[in-house]
């Protein structure tokens, strides 16, 4: 069987969930071969095996984290030439897409982004225009490069673990790929909360929350559910919450198991970022708010009364 290259996303210690989702998808099309950049591959190996990795190409140079996108694209291009994979699967967050874009140019292949499912012959499911249209697409020239949206495909361990044979790759990073150097990193605290695009539950606050201080209420509800915190554009525009937590057309796209929208009216802009969520719960005082059209369960009421009671009930039930 042909190999399916899977670009791993990891933090140097543990594998990100999206990597396991990609492995799950890859297994149905060939032998999953993980492409690992930077340190940490030994520690991650058993996890990769559990999800069916037959092989792990490890390019352990720390330089992969020192430059923007280009070195990873170079490595993938070299591996594509060497092993002629049936496809290259890539984590669909920002950097993954950029790596995929550069790879597409290098090997002259088509790239599909924001893929939410993969069917026979690598036909990809995508949702366009913020979830208004479901599309099936395919790559018709070159080795298909497929960037998969995090959290869209459920990660499942393989029936039989893969061998996960580590094959060191001594790839040379070219001068050209070292053009944009990362010289500093500022990690903003999000506490113990899961990452927004990976979280199985997301609790978002909107204009109705009223102030930055009141976002603490959203955080309390999120923490009671072990959820990530999101925000509508009105909230990030007003400076009540940092921009990178914005869910919507011009922010993050999330598709968690549960999305709780609090004080969010549900403009198209916001719906574009969350309407593929599996279950949606809404708290809003305006019964006419369009967000209720998406709700599996909605409470029309004052969020400052409903949310504290909800937190209390959750804590009662989970303690």
């Amino acid at each position, binding site marked *: 069987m042909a190999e399916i290259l899977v670009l791993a996303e990891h933090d140097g210690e543990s594998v990100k969930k999206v990597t396991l989702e990609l492995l799950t998808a890859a297994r149905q099309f060939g032998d999953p071969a993980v492409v690992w950049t930077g340190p940490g591959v030994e520690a991650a190996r058993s996890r990769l095996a559990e999800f069916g990795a037959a092989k792990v190409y490890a390019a352990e140079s720390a330089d992969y984290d020192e430059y*923007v*996108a*280009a070195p990873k*694209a170079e490595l993938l291009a070299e591996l594509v030439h060497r092993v002629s994979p049936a496809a290259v699967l890539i984590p669909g967050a*920002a*950097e993954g*897409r*950029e790596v995929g*874009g550069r790879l*597409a*140019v290098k090997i*002259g*292949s*088509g*790239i599909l*982004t*924001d893929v939410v499912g993969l069917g026979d012959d690598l036909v990809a499911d995508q949702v*366009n*225009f*913020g979830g*208004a*249209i*479901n*599309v099936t*697409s395919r*790559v*018709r*020239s070159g080795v298909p490069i497929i960037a998969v949206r995090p959290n869209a495909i459920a990660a499942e361990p393989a029936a039989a673990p893969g061998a996960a044979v580590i094959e060191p790759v001594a790839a040379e990073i070219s001068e050209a790929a070292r*053009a*944009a150097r990362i*010289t*500093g*990193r*500022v990690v*903003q605290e*999000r506490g113990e909360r899961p990452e*927004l695009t990976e979280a199985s539950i997301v609790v978002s606050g909107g204009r109705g929350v009223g102030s930055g201080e009141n976002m603490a209420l959203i955080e309390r509800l999120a923490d009671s*559910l072990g959820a990530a915190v999101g925000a509508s554009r009105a909230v*990030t525009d007003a400076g009540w919450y940092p*921009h*990178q937590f914005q869910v919507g*057309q011009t922010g993050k796209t999330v598709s968690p198991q549960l999305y709780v929208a609090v004080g969010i009216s549900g403009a*198209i*802009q916001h719906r574009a970022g969350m309407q593929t969520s599996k279950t*949606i*719960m809404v*708290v809003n005082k305006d019964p006419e708010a369009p967000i*209720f*059209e998406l709700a599996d*369960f*909605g*409470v*029309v*009421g004052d969020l400052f*009364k*409903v949310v*504290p009671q*909800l937190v209390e*009930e*959750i804590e009662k039930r989970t303690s």
Partner: protein
Amino acid sequence: MNIVVCIKQVPDTWSERTLKASDNTLDRDAADAVINETDEFAVEEGLRLAEAHGGEVTIFSMGPERATEAIRKALSMGADKAVHLVDDGLAGTDALGTSAAIAAVLAQIGFDLVILGAESTDARTGVLAAMLAERLGVPQLTLASKVQIDGSAITIHRLMDYGYDTVEATLPAVLSVVEKINEPRYPSFKGIMAAKKKPVQTLTLADIGVDPGAVGLAGAATEVQTWAKRPPKQAGTIVTDDGDGGAKAAEFLAERKFI
């Protein structure tokens, strides 16, 4: 400094957007056309950098005839001139072909800095800036929430999920900006009047030497096979809070096994 800002005309995200039944490409007539929102931040950043460091701002757009509306809008914000790549052969071009055509134009007109919005609100692929950097062999400075230029040195804050990275490079470069990097100015009346007289050069595929077979729907490396409007969601349970709304919500979460 020679700054080129790439803009795209897109269907307004506030209107209903759809595809065409005939060839599965964007139905540009179904929705109001506007300048891609994130691109306004790119134009603004170009103008600010030119104001601070001297130089000229050229607006570039690839798109049908109608894209001149978006070009004029960008010119009315204060850009100096524009280049419009317009050719019937471009209809249906995918990201790979688009990057080939735009890279050919940029190589021809020259640049110190190319600025794009991080992604368009229609296709949302978010790959164009990276593809252009790859094709042009210049540094990729993408997802910038802050830009600083000192001579030929350029430094950005690259917005990431965890916060941001500081990234350094040397011009010429390709830069993409995120929302919030600035506050785009509104065109003044004077700006709108002046924009009508600013030069807009039109180019065709033949002018830039791009093989028509590499672009357009037929040349696309990807294709949409089928599409359908998302079925409307089944109506959920809506309750009005009578003092027990939070408790009822918790009950729902328990039923669905979230707690």
